[in-house]
């Protein structure tokens, strides 16, 4: 088999963990290379060569260097179509269109309020930054409205894009994982919706995601 692919960034980063989940689902061997963000390694000239916006993750395999977690995930699914979970990015164009639609919904509607809440509830206290109750409340309301749409969708469909777990569901794992374990209020946004909570249980219970969470919880190297 080819040399392990390289993923740059800490497992704790939501975007990095999105890629790790995909790699594990596709059973592609990888090497996780830490980027010391507290030492601003992600803004160093060498790192900016592989990620010009100075963010994590960055990715390299033997043929290409990429960034943007959702692009990396799509690339992995296209390149390794026959490895691991073959349904991750659909096996025909119509299913793929539905998956793309819900990946965009995650990126355009779910991501912003959930990211804001992850920062406020998880990272701000960790880095001793003052929380903003106004921002928390505003994003809780936004996220709740998004989850209302998901609640309706998941009434008709086991997973977002259809009856199989796909990249569309996987894309949500990183932010939701933090929120469900952050505070009672944040967890409540998910538990108060029957179908969303059922969906969360299924997608977060996957072996691949449990491995990612273990990596996030592992003591620092």
């Amino acid at each position, binding site marked *: 088999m080819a040399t392990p692919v390289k993923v740059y960034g800490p497992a704790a980063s939501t975007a990095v963990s999105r890629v790790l989940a995909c790699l594990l689902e596709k059973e592609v061997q990888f090497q996780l290379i830490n980027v010391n963000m507290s030492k601003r390694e992600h803004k160093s000239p060498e790192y900016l060569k592989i990620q010009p916006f100075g963010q994590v993750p960055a990715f390299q395999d033997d043929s*290409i260097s*990429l960034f943007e977690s*959702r692009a990396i995930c799509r690339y992995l699914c*296209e390149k390794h179509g026959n490895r691991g979970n073959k349904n991750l990015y659909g096996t025909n*164009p119509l299913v793929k*269109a*539905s998956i793309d*639609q819900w990946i*965009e919904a995650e990126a355009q509607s779910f991501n912003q309020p959930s990211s804001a809440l992850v920062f406020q509830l998880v990272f701000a206290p960790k880095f001793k930054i003052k929380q903003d109750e106004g921002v928390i409340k505003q994003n809780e309301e936004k996220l709740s409205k998004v989850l209302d749409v998901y609640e*309706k969708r998941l009434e008709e469909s086991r997973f977002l894009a259809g009856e199989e777990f796909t990249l569309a569901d996987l894309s949500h794992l990183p932010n939701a994982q933090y929120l469900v374990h952050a505070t009672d209020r944040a967890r409540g946004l998910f538990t108060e919706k029957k179908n969303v909570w059922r969906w969360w249980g299924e997608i977060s219970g996957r072996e691949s995601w449990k491995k990612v969470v273990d990596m996030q919880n592992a003591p620092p190297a």
Partner: protein
Amino acid sequence: MGGLRVHGSPFSTATMRVLAVFHEKELEYDFVQVDMKSGEHKTDKFLALNPFGQVPAFEDGDIKMFESRAITQYLAHTYADRGTQLLFKEPKKMADQSVWVEVEAHHFDKVASKLAWELCLKPMFGMKTDEATAEELKGELGKVLDVYEARLSRTTFISGDAFGLADVHHAPVVHYLMSSPAKEVFVARPHVGKWAEYILSRPAWARVVALQNKE
């Protein structure tokens, strides 16, 4: 072929993103205008097409979709053999373009849409531009376009060595900003300025803009 339908507004950047691809691919379609002023996009009838109550919504026979960037991907793949080629066959070039499709969605659009709202859309709706916010956003846009300048000094287009989907995705917001005081942020960067002018000069884009004048 037949049964291609878009529901939206000719002034909505997301709707225009889809219309641009229709015209680049030379596809015929039915354009159903959604009366956003009267809240048509929040009615149950429309929510059945886009559960987020946003434009555009799209139909291709029995297929129903929302999210402009998913619709454009679907069109580019399904009608690959028609009109302008917007995708690359070579996997590395496709992966490279895919990165910049995400860059538009996550880095460019976040800042540029807000700026287009302040400078162009608010006045259209009789609201006042917040100058301080606009200045701040112009600064942020400048930082993003610095990365674009570096990209465009190595490749002719944002998509890579040929015009493609990642370039088309930018056209609606670039269109608004290039006819506003924010134009200077683009033209201050020579490669970016040339690229912005090029994507707006495409005949397919002119046809999208013409739909606004039919109002």
